[in-house]
């Protein structure tokens, strides 16, 4: 247990922000060395793909292009110059398409934001409701059945679920478009297929929390005082069980971002996930690096936010905000 005197809220915020910066820096470093230390010459690969086997240019032409993309500089120097460029907002140019990376990201990011947002908007209330329903009467037949639902949802592979949804609701019933990201109708199926596996984890954690809190002494005390169960359950049990749920929701953002790779592929939607998958395949390092750092930025920011939010939800945390949970 931490014995140092509690620090001010400002110190806590600063500390969290420092963690945030360290995470981003680490992601950049690992991604950079993974991408640029890989075998393969991205310029030769680009020309090879462009010419589709017709010949990839002369050694002189390759050398000129390599120089243009700065690939001849020593790795440590490129590491620093790329970092400097990123810090000034220069994300570079795609090796494959020759287009500026921000332009590529801007073209597809709104689709991913809409998809991830919609998935969370579906997943969070759905898992809240399901968990509250499951845990309402511990030991009841409903509890015994519903408690298995998250495991079932988690067991369904995301791409299989997505294909099933397309077959039934697009090709079969014709209710939703099967491909493309236009408008609200195009968002429904991808959001559902992304939200269901995410809900599984959220529900499971919340049910566990609700069940545990119900066994606490203060619950028995409140019930003994004659408070109605519904009030005890919602105002006291649920509130206490919500803490790990909030943390997990923050972590879930990562899962949702990762899930977009498959969801966007199956539903033929433009998005960061698809761009990432195709860029990894073609070793388009500037694009992969930018998406990795962007994803880390979003993920770390959301978790920073939940970290800062928790003390507001739980008064106990306000007095031991440093050290213990780092």
């Amino acid at each position, binding site marked *: 247990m931490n014995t140092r005197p509690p620090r001010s809220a400002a110190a806590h915020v600063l500390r969290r922000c420092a963690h945030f910066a360290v995470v981003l820096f680490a992601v950049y470093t690992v991604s950079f060395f993974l991408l640029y230390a*890989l*075998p*393969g*010459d*991205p310029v*030769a*690969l680009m*020309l*090879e*793909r*462009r*010419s*589709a*086997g*017709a*010949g*990839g*240019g*002369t050694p*002189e*032409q*390759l050398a*000129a*292009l390599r120089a243009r993309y700065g690939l001849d500089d020593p790795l440590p120097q490129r590491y620093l110059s790329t970092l400097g460029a990123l810090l000034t907002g220069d994300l570079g140019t795609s090796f*494959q*398409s*020759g*287009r500026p990376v921000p332009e*590529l990201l801007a*073209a*597809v990011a709104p689709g991913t934001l809409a998809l991830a947002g919609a998935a969370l908007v579906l997943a969070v209330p759905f898992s809240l409701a399901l968990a509250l329903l499951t845990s309402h009467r511990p030991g009841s037949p409903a509890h015994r059945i519903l408690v298995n639902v998250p495991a079932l949802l988690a067991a369904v*592979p995301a*791409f*299989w679920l997505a*294909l*099933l949804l*397309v*077959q039934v609701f*697009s*090709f*079969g*019933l*014709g209710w939703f478009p*099967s*491909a*493309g*990201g236009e408008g609200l109708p195009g968002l429904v199926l991808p959001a559902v297929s992304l939200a269901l596996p995410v809900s599984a984890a959220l529900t499971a954690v919340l049910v566990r929390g609700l069940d545990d809190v119900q066994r606490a002494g203060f619950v028995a005390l409140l019930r003994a005082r004659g408070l109605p169960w519904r009030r005890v359950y919602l105002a006291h049990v649920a509130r206490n069980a919500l803490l790990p749920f909030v943390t997990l929701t923050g972590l879930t953002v990562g899962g949702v971002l990762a899930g977009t790779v498959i969801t*966007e*592929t*199956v539903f*033929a*939607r*433009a*998005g960061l996930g*698809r*761009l990432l998958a*195709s860029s990894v*395949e*073609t*070793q388009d390092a500037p694009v992969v690096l930018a998406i990795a750092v962007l994803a880390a930025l979003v993920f770390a920011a959301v978790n920073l936010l939940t970290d800062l939010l928790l003390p507001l939800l739980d008064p106990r945390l306000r007095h031991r905000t440093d050290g213990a949970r780092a």
Partner: protein
Amino acid sequence: MTRAPRTGRPLAACAAAALVLTGCGGTATGGATGGAPDELRIAYGWYPTCFDYAQSNPFALFGRQVLDTLLSENPATGELEPYLAESWETLDAGRAYEFTLREGVTFSNGEELTAEVVADNFRTLWDLAERGVSTTPGAYLRGFEQAEALDARTVRVEFAEPNAGFLQANTEGQFGIIAPESLAAGPEERCAHGTIGSGPFVLAETVQDERIVYERREGYDWAPAAFGHRGEAVPAEVTIRIVPEESLRAAGVLAGEYDLAYSVTEAGLAQAEGRDDVTTVLAPDRSVVNTLVVNTGDPVLADPAVRQAIQRGIDRAELAGTFYGAGVEPATDVVSRGHRFHTDHSALLSHDPELARALLEDAGWATGEDGVRVKDGQRLELSLTYVGTDIGSTVSGWEYLQSRLAGLGIALTLQPVSPAEQSDLRASADWQLAVYQGASRGDADGIAAFYSTDFTHWQGQAPRPEVDALLAEQSATVDPRRRAALVDEAVTTILEQGYGIPLFDSAQVLLARTEVTGLTFPVNAWEPLLYAVGKDGGER
């Protein structure tokens, strides 16, 4: 050929499972069935990284729709026919060419087609080639010296050495004639936004990773006779949807959401079984076929007996028939059946394991204790590298090859690599056997680019002066008969010596709704002629 990535097999397998669950076979009642009669809807797997055909071969489907070329090739006869050029002349034994342009042709931005514009097209292509960004047109323009407008309608192109393949290159999309506005744009801009041509369609909309829409060009009236249609394009609008998952491309055609789906494999065809409203369309490749590239500079493969034993030790019919699906045929030549320079050489490629064993015995390769042959302490061990993500690359096929060669006493190690690793290996000269398919070019220069050690980008091969000289001579020989004879002589030597081991000839497999009419592939498998494609009931 076009090498495009393939999405994972698990997806396809699960699509099949999903189909079974939903009993989709007979329940396709999607509201979109049929679509507008003059709107063509195509499902395609990959969004183009570059819209400029001159810089990017793999996305032929996209670049080609807005372009016209100076000449066209009659697919039935192989003859060159007028297109934007009304007539042409070969001068100075292939060192110069003069084209007389058709009158009244405009680009879709209103600019006029003139001799000066065409000359500028060739100069710009050569400039891009020298900067390393358009290697294929660079190869087509080998020896380019200058292009000039002799008058408003006559263009003269001159080469330092005879360039016999140049006329044929003028039927290829890389030589699509573009408007001055596009000539003034830099290579990146051309890639990002495409080029302005005089073709039957204009690019109307692009949505990254989702769709590309073409609209019919009003007033278009200069299609060549080989296209089988006159005037404006049949479809008013063409929408190409990017659907990465192959089983969904096929399912979309079955449900009537698309008229046509590209690159359909066994999983997709299985869905279509028993359906009479869809049909399978095979678009034959027109390239150097899928081949085992042989590093003749390698100590083991330097022995002609080893190469010849592999050449005759492979049962191509069994390989193609067992491990590959519709549209894959055993190779009968270094190039595909649809290639202008195809000659049936199947006698040189027939399966003869006894001959293969005898060749190895005679060369001193004696069977060792573990069944692997040995000569002077050197074991007959070879490594085969292949890119697992290439279309047409099936691991089980290479395993079959491995087991058949083991029967001859050749120990083959399979080495799957990424495209990047293959690219590195090829440049390093440190490889033995590799699987590769040549680029799509309907001219003998495509064979030279693959097999001449002067041009090939597979480093490390021992020079083969005889073949190199023949391939160089054919590319400077204008007389068609003489040229064909030279090519045949070179190819015969290549096959006899085992400088390359052709395996199988593949085709693009498409799934189309039966109401689709007029779908042809006059240039190559990746360039459907959408201009004349209609739907029953939608004909103008």
